[in-house]
């Protein structure tokens, strides 16, 4: 294992010491009737351009809140989130989100859902080009056949594909995914994971993704951020996943190091920070 493959090809292009996405000393405190409730504190993380980061942790550790502060839907109580040095204060298309339950508009077809995003972000572009972008992205997720169907006629996996196509069609700098494949069956899940990796390689996009699934995180991520349990959740450990890319699931499964990492993550989640209800 050489140092070269410890980082993804794209992050190698970025100047060293040139942070892309920074979470700087973040805490989130909610005022309650019984006094302030600290969901998380002291979160500091730097993500390089083009990096794929998975966030893993038990429910209630504030993973979604953390990503909401990157997307701008929530504000940290202390600390700040910066993208290329700019402080994040509100949601914007440069940090596009693939929502947990797809968030497609049911009265629009798959095509129209993606078009809405492309049109909103680049209104001045000629219509023909916008249509072409939409078509291209739907084709990329394998939805040429079904692009004129409405979400109600699509399966969960297909809806998630539309959501991914919509997110990528506007060329975000950071792609944020909140447990995107949680509701899908195992086969669809693996297919979509592979497609996501392919698209990530082609689009050179920085990804932050929440997942519950250690195997998914090991297959996809450059680094896995493991969070301790809330309240007062922190980053417990950051695991580098140094497998070469493009990754092949079968070959990965044969690598003994895969199991070393897997056991390490399992140990973190189920022994050291086991979830007690």
């Amino acid at each position, binding site marked *: 294992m050489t140092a070269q493959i410890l980082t993804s090809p794209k992050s190698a292009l970025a100047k060293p010491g040139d942070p892309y996405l920074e979470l700087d000393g973040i805490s989130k405190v909610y005022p309650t009737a019984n006094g302030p409730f600290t969901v998380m504190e002291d979160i500091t993380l730097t993500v390089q351009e083009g990096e794929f980061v998975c966030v893993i942790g038990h429910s209630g550790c504030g993973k979604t809140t953390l990503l909401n502060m990157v*997307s701008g*839907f929530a504000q940290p109580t202390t600390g700040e989130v910066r993208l290329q040095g700019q402080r994040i204060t509100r*949601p914007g298309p440069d940090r*596009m989100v693939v*929502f947990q339950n797809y968030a497609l508009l049911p009265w629009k077809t798959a095509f129209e859902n993606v078009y809405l995003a492309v049109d909103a972000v680049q209104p001045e572009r000629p219509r023909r080009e916008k249509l072409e972008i939409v078509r291209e992205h739907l084709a990329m997720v394998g939805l040429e056949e079904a692009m004129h169907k409405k979400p109600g006629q699509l399966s969960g996996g297909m809806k998630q594909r539309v959501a991914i196509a919509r997110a990528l069609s*506007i060329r975000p700098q950071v792609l944020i995914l909140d447990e995107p494949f949680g509701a899908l069956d195992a086969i669809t899940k693996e297919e979509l994971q592979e497609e996501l990796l392919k698209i990530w390689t082609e689009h050179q996009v920085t990804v932050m993704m929440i997942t519950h699934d250690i195997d998914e995180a090991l297959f996809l991520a450059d680094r896995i951020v493991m969070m301790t349990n809330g309240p007062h959740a922190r980053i417990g450990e950051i695991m580098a996943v140094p497998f070469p890319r493009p990754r092949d699931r079968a070959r990965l499964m044969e690598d003994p190091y895969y199991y070393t990492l897997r056991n390490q993550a399992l140990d973190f989640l189920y022994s050291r920070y086991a979830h007690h209800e």
Partner: protein
Amino acid sequence: MATVAGRNRLPRFNFATYFKKNGRNVIAPSAALVVALICWELFSAVTQSLPGPIQVIRETWDPLIICPFYVGNQAWGLNGLSGGDVGLGWQAIASLIRVSIGYSLAAMVGIFVGVLVGASRLLYRAVDPMFQVLRTVPPLAWLPIALAIFRDSGPAGIFIIFVTAIWPIIYNTAVGVQQMPQDYKNVAKVLRLSGKEYFFSILLPSIVPYMLTGLRLGIGLAWLAIVAAEMLRGDTGIGFFIWNSYNSGNLSEVILALFYIGMIGFLLDRLVGAIASFVAADH
């Protein structure tokens, strides 16, 4: 045979199997109707207060029942069809035009106000008590007020229909806005949609099912208000017809007109319901 099965052919209609399946649905209401008619006939025979069903049909058969669109001798007055000597079909059309004007106004204003009230919690709190009281005022009670405002029975009648039909439209639209899924708002936020785009691409389509519920309740109420709206009008409409027949002591005509009102109200409800289920199919 595969080619035939491949095409989406309707199964052949078979009366016997249809009747076997739906016989109860036909027999039960028919039986109830017959029982009701018998009770009515007995009631009128005993009390002598109302004409029974047989008498109603006999007295209104020619020309009202057999010719709903006849035009009497004195019908063409200065105002076109006036004076009331025309078939109930014409009266119903006059009423429907009046209702459609009042109802359309109620729909437009109601949806507009509903969106505003639904979007602003403060505004909702401010007007909710007032609207809750106003919406219980019956159509007839608006009559003197409408006449005082408009000094003319034409616009006053339309106002009564408007003010009766508008409340469920306002409330259902407002609830639709309040119940809009957070997901849709988040999409709008992350894409930074402009106000216009947000309104037409997200807000309006997402409240359509609620709006249609309001519109369906509204059409029922608008039609309920028709008699009140037309009571003082001396020219046309089914409400006027009822009032006119009552004043000339012809209860059979009144009963026939009630039947018309009921049937038209039922059809209007079904029509708006059908439109609603067609439009809301995507939701």
